[in-house]
């Protein structure tokens, strides 16, 4: 009977999750007008600096092994914060792009499709990079490939700007602090 109780609890939790996602989906639909306020601009330069392998090599040469691990972990935590924001921005842009998909203008629909695909790629890459960051936090001497996130973010910004231009030429989307 213990097994049955475990399965019943799992089934109940699954049902709650599914219903919660269903409810949040309908709430998202009605709240799509506030999407842009959810975008947090990112200082891409600082982000790029944090994931620069040359910087890491320099720090490795200059610092003692224990001090390097400490500094590296701090840099990784900061990188993780940037990647999280990039991933969240990507999720917002997926939603934004999807809401622009069914507009009558084929140029806007095309731009929206590109934006959603780029945002999904970035969200996927951000997830993978976050996993690698957590592994690297355990082994700070291991390398970290965050390039897909930076490149993805660049492509995403271009797509978002294109969509912004097409939707409203006067006021495009701003994704980074420069």
């Amino acid at each position, binding site marked *: 009977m213990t097994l*049955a109780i475990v399965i019943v609890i799992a089934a109940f939790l699954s049902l709650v999750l*599914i219903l919660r*996602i269903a409810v949040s989906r309908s709430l998202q639909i009605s709240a799509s007008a506030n999407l842009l306020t959810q975008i947090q601009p990112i200082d*891409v330069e600082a982000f790029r600096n944090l994931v620069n392998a040359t910087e890491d090599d320099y720090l490795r040469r200059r610092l003692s092994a224990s001090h390097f691990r400490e500094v590296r972990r701090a840099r990784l935590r900061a990188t993780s914060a940037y990647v999280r924001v990039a991933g969240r921005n990507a999720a917002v842009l997926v939603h934004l792009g999807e809401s622009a998909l069914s507009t009558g203008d084929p140029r806007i629909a095309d731009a929206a499709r590109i934006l959603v*695909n780029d945002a999904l790629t970035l969200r996927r890459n951000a997830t993978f990079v976050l996993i690698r960051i957590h592994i690297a936090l355990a082994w700070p001497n291991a390398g970290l490939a965050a390039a897909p996130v930076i490149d993805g973010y660049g492509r995403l910004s271009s797509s978002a700007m294109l969509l912004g231009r097409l939707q409203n030429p006067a006021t495009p989307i701003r994704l980074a602090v420069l």
Partner: protein
Amino acid sequence: MLQAHSLLWHYLWLAPHVLQVALAILLWQRGLHKLFPVFVAYTIFEAIEEFTLYGMDVLPWVTVDTFWRTFWVGLIIEGLVRFVLIGELCLHLLRPWPAVANLGNRLISFTGSVLVLLATLAAAYAPIDNPQYSLISRAHILQQTLYIVQCGLVLFLFLFAAYFRLAWNNRTFGIALGLGIVSCEHLATWAVMANGGLIDKRYLLDFLNMATYHVCVLVWFYYLLVPQKTRTKSVVPLPEHNLEIWNRELERLLQQ
């Protein structure tokens, strides 16, 4: 009222499947069978299966053994059709987005494999509570096994879509929602039955199963046939303009 062969019992067994026949006809008339061929096939199969089982249950000359053997055959086919239906939902959800389609397909295959393993373990630990009618106990265990995998896969679809903020098409969402509710509730009840729980009050679990299925058929009706409100697509007021600098700077970053 809450007894086998009561009026409510007859209604709950038959009504959802009568509605399913009507749903299948309406979907066919509206050409939606081309969009959701597996769902339409599932709807028709489910109705035929349940009408057959209902007939066998009320006809006095049908033996218990024959009923459960038919139940077994129906269960296996229904299980297969439902997995293909989940595949259809997955296709509808991921096909428009190549950026995550490959990842989604790999993850759902992996999740399916893990769930099959877990379901097999759960089946191995489930007791055969009535050796004289092991066919019934084994049918309950098979139900539990199928629903562990099915419920897990549907939950995976919901979580994957929520994580990537993938927009469900309303109809696909409705099918998935109904299937999700049925899967979770049926998993719980069949797990209780498979593990020997509530032996004297199993008719209550049957009522719960039938009532939930009825609700889910209504969910499918609503999402598939009731015209959905079109979302108003107002141009989002965008923040201040800094496109030129943005573009120049990003291109510089990308070329580094």
